[in-house]
């Protein structure tokens, strides 16, 4: 019975995407599928943290953005001139900064006298900060002056973009380690606020440090793991095949590229899903749930609660980082201005809660269904609004305003959906076993 329900729900997803294909266009359907796959991965990451261990992370946006940053750092072509004028200096400044922080840490650890400890650390921090800024600022000015219209940043390593996916995970994991070290072990509300803050800071850094990834000037035209549509359209073999199936070669090329992405994303999703599933049913997974359900009892049994929390916080964040890198690959550009918490943090939460927290299949299902709604609420709303306002004159101010506002229906819908699920089916569509 349970399995039948799960199967029906997934068939529903397939059905929804097929309908989109037939009614709207196959390009739209594949776009929804691709972002749905990415959403499902993000939702798995959050499910690992919240569903397995009960960690309340609302900084998902930050980890997703770090993944995107990794895509730029790995795959963008290097800008050699930037490196020669100031790149070394910037890296040097950062190394120096880390050195100062480590020194302060050691100072605090080693010095016993509390007055010496405080003043020494303060002086080290202030002196270190000013020296750092002096080295750093000159480097930044030099780098950002290098052909600012098209580069003005350090560039990346010029490696294939697929390499960026695991690197994005690593970058997010590193950030998660730092955050987890400070904020885990506090009450859950505090972890929430701390992660909310760190996400805003990560976005602020990516937006403002132009030397890193061009900030709001965006890095565009990242290399792709799939061929370009225009090349396919000039490839005789491809055009002939398309014609023989009876599809217009231009449409065929866009569909073909999207299918390649869908294939790549599916592989990642399946691998992560299998790993998450194995983890859930392993002794480690049982321990996590034991900690989630009763921290005190788990601690009494000799489990290192804070250590395990840190572990799972890093794992979940890394998965979000991978998904972030994949998303930037799909867009082949990094646009820091588009990262907004409602879309990249809270929407993922809706996916997990609606799908069923604690259940990996539920998280994946939630990712697909919620993403589908997020995209399709607007056209559906437009349609409904046209019917609702059909009695009004074509140029009435109310009608125009309502039609304009339809775009914001999706937030309202998500809120109502979340509340309904929490109220009437608090364990989600596919509850935890």
């Amino acid at each position, binding site marked *: 019975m349970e399995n039948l329900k799960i199967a029906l729900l997934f068939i529903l997803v397939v059905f929804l995407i097929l309908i989109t294909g037939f009614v709207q266009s196959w390009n739209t359907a594949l776009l929804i599928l691709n972002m749905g796959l990415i959403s499902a991965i993000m939702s798995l990451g959050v499910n690992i943290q919240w569903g397995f261990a009960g960690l309340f992370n609302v900084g998902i946006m930050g980890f997703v953005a770090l993944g995107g940053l990794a895509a730029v750092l790995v795959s963008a072509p290097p800008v050699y001139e930037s490196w020669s004028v100031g790149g070394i200096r910037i890296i040097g400044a950062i190394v120096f900064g880390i050195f100062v922080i480590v020194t302060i840490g050691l100072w605090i650890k080693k010095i016993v006298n509390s007055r010496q400890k405080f003043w020494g650390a303060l002086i080290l921090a202030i002196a270190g900060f000013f020296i750092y800024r002096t080295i750093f600022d000159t480097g930044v000015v030099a780098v950002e002056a290098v052909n600012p219209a098209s580069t003005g940043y350090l560039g990346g390593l010029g490696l294939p973009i697929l390499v960026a996916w695991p690197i994005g995970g690593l970058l997010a994991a590193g950030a998660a380690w730092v955050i987890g070290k400070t*904020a885990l072990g506090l*009450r859950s*509300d*505090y972890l929430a606020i701390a992660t909310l*803050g760190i996400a805003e800071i990560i976005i602020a850094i990516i937006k403002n440090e132009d030397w890193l990834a061009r900030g709001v000037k965006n890095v565009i035209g990242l290399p792709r793991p799939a061929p370009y549509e225009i090349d396919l359209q000039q490839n005789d073999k491809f055009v002939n095949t398309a014609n023989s199936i009876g599809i217009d070669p231009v449409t065929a090329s866009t569909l073909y590229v999207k299918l390649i992405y869908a294939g790549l994303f599916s592989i990642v999703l399946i691998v992560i899903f299998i790993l998450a599933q194995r983890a859930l049913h392993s002794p480690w997974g049982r321990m996590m749930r034991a900690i989630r359900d009763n921290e005190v009892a788990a601690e009494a049994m000799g489990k290192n609660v804070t250590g395990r929390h840190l572990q799972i916080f890093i794992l979940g964040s890394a998965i979000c980082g991978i998904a972030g890198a994949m998303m930037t690959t799909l867009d082949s550009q990094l646009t820091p201005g588009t990262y907004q918490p409602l879309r990249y943090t809270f929407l993922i939460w809706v996916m997990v809660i609606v799908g069923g927290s604690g259940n990996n299949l539920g998280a994946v299902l939630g990712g697909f269904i919620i993403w589908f709604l997020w995209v399709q609420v607007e056209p559906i709303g437009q349609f409904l609004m046209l019917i609702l306002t059909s009695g009004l004159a074509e140029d009435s101010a109310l009608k125009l305003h309502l039609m304009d506002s339809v775009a*914001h229906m999706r937030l*309202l*819908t998500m*809120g109502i959906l979340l509340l309904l699920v929490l109220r009437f089916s608090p364990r989600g569509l596919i509850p935890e076993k």
Partner: protein
Amino acid sequence: MDLLNALIVFSNFVFIPALAYGSQLALGALGVTLIYGILRFSNFAHGDTMAFGAMMTVLATWWLQGMGVSLGPFPTAILALPFGIVVCSLFILATDRVVYRFYRKQKAKPVILVIVSMGIMFIMNGLVRFIIGPNDQRFADGERFIISVREFKQLTGLREGLAFKTTQGITIITAVLVVLILFWFLNKTRTGKSMRAYSDNEDLALLSGINPEKVVTVTWLIVAALATVAGTLYGLDKSFKPFVYFQLLLPIFASAIVGGLGNPIGAIAGGFIVAFSEVTITYAWKKVLKYSLPESFEPTSLMQLLSTDYKFAVSFVILVVVLLFRPTGLFRGKAF
């Protein structure tokens, strides 16, 4: 050296703006802290409640302006404020009846309530964008300055001017009034005392015959009023933009936690601590130092510790430091 001019520059760019911003944060943090104290969860929808209340005030202001009503030198928004408060209260009470009460009856875990408040956040955010749109809205009118830079220079003959905006003055005065009323209410009235009792020890309060539903209702009413006032003041001082209110959530929570969650005095102190740190750390000190140091020490750079884009980082760092060294907050909230 010219310390007087240095002081004027300091007041103009740091002290007065931080005072106004701090008042807005304090009002916001009071709302968060009251909900935490009485209903025992962190309300993620608070930023959007502020936006909702402010939006209602903006709409009423436009209507009043359209009718030709004005307060002379004061912004019309002050007349519209009661309307905003009433509508916001009604909406908030409706969410309590329809949504929150169910979980209260169930004695749901606080974290569930936080997730529920995320749902409310989506709905309010959507409503605000739906009704007024996502763009900047101007609704301030009346006299712009209590004293403008030029008037100040003429008056004192100093080289630097001091501008004191009407909105800043109104923000500070309103905040003081609101806080006085709130504390009078909490400390002197029967309902206020029962709220404090309920916050201190729920079981004991219930035992002594305090009606929990009444306490919760009054709390939501106060929170709606505080949020509307804070949101309107912020909108008057800067401008009304729905998305900005969501971003205020972080400094507001930082203020409440720094002061000690659940402690009203702490929330006010926290608001000013966060505001002053944000402004002082992101302000370019060159001009102040130019006046206050001997000529040979005059700084060549801007002397700005962090660019203003990183103001969130400031509230965040304060938050983390307090959490690490004094998790209950400076004024011993009820965090543990």
